[in-house]
């Protein structure tokens, strides 16, 4: 059941992205920026929390979930450390994913070469 919920929520978020790509002139890069920012805003408004509760990885794996972690991290840290927390909280909460993406991204880019396009 957990997997069904993750599938539905994750699929729906990707579906929204696809509809935006097909019906507007938004490129993939703009979609990613839009989704991350939307995630931060939804974390602030408290809308995304219930989606995460219900959808699990379906809500946290898409980039909106990355934005949600950033926003939630900032709020949690502000509660603990005040103004300083606004600057440290978001990145602290997402540090693993970001460091992983940069490091693995670099390693793979060095190891592999682009495949010739058909």
């Amino acid at each position, binding site marked *: 059941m957990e997997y069904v919920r993750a599938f539905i929520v994750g*699929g729906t978020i990707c579906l929204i992205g*696809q509809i935006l790509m097909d019906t507007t002139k938004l490129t993939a890069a703009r979609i*990613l920026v839009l989704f991350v920012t939307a995630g931060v805003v939804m974390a602030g408004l408290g809308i995304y929390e219930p989606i995460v509760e219900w959808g699990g*990885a379906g809500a946290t794996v898409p980039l*909106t979930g*990355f934005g949600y972690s950033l926003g939630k991290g900032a709020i949690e840290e502000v509660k603990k450390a005040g103004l300083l927390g606004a600057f440290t909280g978001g990145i602290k909460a997402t540090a693993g994913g970001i460091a992983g993406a940069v490091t693995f991204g670099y390693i793979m880019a060095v190891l592999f070469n682009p495949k010739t396009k058909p």
Partner: protein
Amino acid sequence: MDAVKQHQQEEYQQFIKDKIPKPNLLRNAVAAFVVGGLICDVGQFISNFGQSYFNLNKDDTSAFTAIVLVFLGALLTGLGIYDQIGRFAGAGSVVPITGFANSIVSPAMEFKREGYVLGVGAKMFIIAGPVLVYGFSSSVALGILYLLFSI
């Protein structure tokens, strides 16, 4: 004779291409939904695995899941598999965090000939850079707003 035939065939194919409605909204939507959903299920599996085998707490589980997914996305991009998935799935492969890893590796590989600093090192962030800029800035702004409203 063959050349004429080939030319006709090419013309016909162009004619067909013009007739096909583009983009096919329904097909794209279904592909994005299914592939996006499946990638999230892989994430759910990794998350459950981390919780039960490494006894990770909630925060560590989400970090663990993100790191493993980003690794898989980067590896599959290097192997050329992720782009094949992407051609089929569109946003279904772009929106998950694996797509974020893909957006780092693709341009970095492409610009390797420009060197390891301004080629790989800089071009990694063509798409990831803006994502981080807007993500970080808005999270800092949100933290400050939260502080102001909670006083």
